[in-house]
């Protein structure tokens, strides 16, 4: 059964890499505007779960419904379009294009969907202001700090108005203070646009920014809200 009104649901996901069962019957659901933390020890399958939910990896079996549509029934082109227009991504590091300036990086998702440079960069700069990095617009990723780069990446994840943001250890490479500021800005921006966030983290202080958490162990998930 699909939880009523869920934006994304996954049922009985299985994925093996050789003899290793990365996912072994994992379940997941998220509603619009909700922030859900995916927690679990290293190697538990949480990143594989995120990659399956985002349509980056195809599970061996199981179903993933986004807005009522089965992800595996879509063509590669349809899934790519979905990732460009409906999803936003924030990873631990290495996600900005080093040759482009920060504002060009943020504007990139809009440019890829056909927006003109001026309009795309104007929108991009608006998001950079909200993430307090507009003064870095002309700099390249190599010239900014880890915390600043992560804020630029969040601005890029939000620029196309995604309904769902996938964040994989977004503060993993940052110190406590920078990590907290990044989480504050990410969750504030997501809440103000009613975007849902799937937040993969092993840090409980980061997970505390979510509305609820699921725990992944040995490829199986447990919804802690429903467990209590």
């Amino acid at each position: 059964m699909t939880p009523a009104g869920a934006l994304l649901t996954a049922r009985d996901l299985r994925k093996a890499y050789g003899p290793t069962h990365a996912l072994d019957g994992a379940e997941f659901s998220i509603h619009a505007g909700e922030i859900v933390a995916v927690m679990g020890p290293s190697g538990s399958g949480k990143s594989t779960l995120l990659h399956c939910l985002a349509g980056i990896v195809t599970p061996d079996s199981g179903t993933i419904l986004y807005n009522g549509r089965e992800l595996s029934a879509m063509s590669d082109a349809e899934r790519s379009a979905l990732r460009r227009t409906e999803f936003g991504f924030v990873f631990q590091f290495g996600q900005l294009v080093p040759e482009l300036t920060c504002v060009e990086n943020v504007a990139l998702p809009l440019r890829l969907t056909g927006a003109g440079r001026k309009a795309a960069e104007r929108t991009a700069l608006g998001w950079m202001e909200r993430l307090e990095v507009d003064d870095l617009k002309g700099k390249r990723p190599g010239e900014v700090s880890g915390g600043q780069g992560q804020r630029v990446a969040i601005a890029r994840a939000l620029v196309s108005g995604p309904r769902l943001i996938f964040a994989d250890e977004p503060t993993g490479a940052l110190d406590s203070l920078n990590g907290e500021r990044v989480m504050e800005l990410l969750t504030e921006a997501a809440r103000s646009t009613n975007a849902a966030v799937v937040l993969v983290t092993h840090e409980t202080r980061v997970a505390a920014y979510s509305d609820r958490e699921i725990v992944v162990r040995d490829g199986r998930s447990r919804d802690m809200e429903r467990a209590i």
Partner: protein
Amino acid sequence: MSIGHTLLGLLESGPRHGYDLKRAFDEKFGHDKPLHYGQVYSTMSRLLKNGLVEVDGIEAGDGPERKRYAITEAGITDVGAWLATPEKPEPYLSSTLYTKVVLALLTGRDAADLLDTQRAEHLRMMRVLTDRKRRGDLADQLICDHALFHLEADLRWLELTAARLDKLGKAVGA
């Protein structure tokens, strides 16, 4: 926390009435537990008896008379000594949680489930504190951070114990 030392410390900047002391304490340290007037007055009479404060003046009013207290030299020395003495780290060696986990193992109950439920409860409290921190001023942020780091340490213990349940079961003879 030593209320006596805290009130003494607040008096160092100048004499105050009992009511002012309570207000200053509540504002700075009493976020969850404001002081009762009774606590202030019983603490002040103890400090007075021990020569750490003195009565600086008495105002007569409609109600009971209002004493104004000032810190003495002995009081200043006492505050200095308290601040310079490190607090005893609390190692929580007799943890209720450890007892519960072992009992669950010994009685064939689901110890992993117990740990997961506790974990969710800890995280729920961390959410409340994170939200309070977000809305609060710097004092609120520091107070919440202190609590958050302690809860985080508990959670690390819960994780580690969950990963060692099989071993623990064998060790306690379950």
